[in-house]
């Protein structure tokens, strides 16, 4: 399972499309804000029926989101024993050094700047999906 946390509708559409095109969209869960992502991961609120051991293989996390930001979601994921080994890829439009440092300080597994050109964007999403879903091994 891949968890996509992205508030921008177009970016989400393009990401899903790129994954689908490369047959990587078997189970993609798309959530549109950080609060929902935390509820999902820690089995709270609307997701309290979920099985917590059913963890995503990777989380594609947008950095800039309303209410709970990507950095805050990342901080909570990496601070909790139950979720800290889930690979997190920060997806952002910002190349700000400050954000890159803060994300790595919090333990991000990858930091990716979303390109404007769709061809480049599509290739990056496909490469990331393939690497984290197929190539990489994370603790269960």
């Amino acid at each position, binding site marked *: 399972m891949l968890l996509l946390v992205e508030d*921008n509708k*177009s*970016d989400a*559409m*393009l990401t899903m*499309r790129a994954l689908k095109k490369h047959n990587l969209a078997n189970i993609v869960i798309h959530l549109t804000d950080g609060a929902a992502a935390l509820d999902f991961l820690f089995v709270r609120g609307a997701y309290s029926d979920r099985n917590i051991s059913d963890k995503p293989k990777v989380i594609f996390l947008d950095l*800039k989101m309303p209410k709970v930001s990507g950095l805050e979601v990342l901080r909570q994921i990496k601070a909790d024993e139950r979720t800290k080994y889930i690979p997190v890829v920060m997806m*952002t*439009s*910002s*190349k*700000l050094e400050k954000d890159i440092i803060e994300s790595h300080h919090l333990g991000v597994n990858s930091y990716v700047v*979303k*390109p*404007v*050109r*769709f*061809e480049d*964007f*599509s290739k990056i999403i496909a490469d990331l999906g393939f690497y984290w879903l197929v190539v990489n091994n994370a603790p269960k």
Partner: protein
Amino acid sequence: MKNDLHKLTIVDELIVANQEVIFQSKEKREVELDIANKLLTFQNDEKEKRAAELVIANKELVFQNEKKEKRAERLLIANRKLVIQSKLQKHQAEQLREALAELESFSYSVSHDLRAPLRAISGLSQVLAEDYAEKLDDEAKGLLDEIIANSDRMGELIDNLLEFSRIGKQPISLGDVNVNQLVTAVIAEQRLLDRNRKLTIEIKNLEKTQGDRNMLKQVFINLISNAFKYTGKKEEAIIEIGSYLENTNCIYYVKDNGAGFDMNYYDKLFGVFQRLHSNTEFDGTGVGLAIVQKIITKHHGKVWAESKVNEGACFYISLPNSN
């Protein structure tokens, strides 16, 4: 009788002796007093002299004291001025910091908020072109291609503008720079990007220098990639890179036999978003040379160029000689 006479003689003798003693001691005291007197007179003169000296010294002190008071007053005024100035400077520094923070948040929003919609325009146009290929005629497809090309170009412009503002803010970290090594690496990278070219590249002696390695690498990337680009339409491209010492400066140059530029528009050459060639002729955003100038200015150096249309261009960088 005889005894009496004898007595008398002794008494006389004693009187005489006594008188002599009195006389002698008087004389002695007189001499002594004279000496003492002379000594006192001398000492007195000395004291008077010293007193006179002291009066002069005292006057001098009073004068110096007045001078010092005046200086103290002046210092006090200067000090007050400094306090005011330093308050002013603190205020200005604060304003500057605020402006800088504002600029940072501005470039953040430019980088994040402007790129996202562009990605949507470009990406969704692409999706439209792919998913509805059968329903769209050639004109519609051509229009979509234009939309995609333009939004991609705007993305490039934003990226370059951000890079330009980032370099402006970045402080220099000084170190030894082996320019020969740096240029060799840049050329190898450029060749990889453009493999099927007939190129003659000559690297002459390149002096070492002091500077920010990454920034100077950016300078050579921009100059050398320009040389590659603007020789693109030549049968055989010749690029020469070298350096020479002149006075206290070391001058590096990148010379090509490419399209060159019209010296009449020289004043626009290093401007941001200024181009001397159209996009259909040579692709570009007009930021590369502006970045070169900004970096070299930060290094207290100079950059200039000379060219003849269709015969080539030569770009010069002058940096303070560190060797």
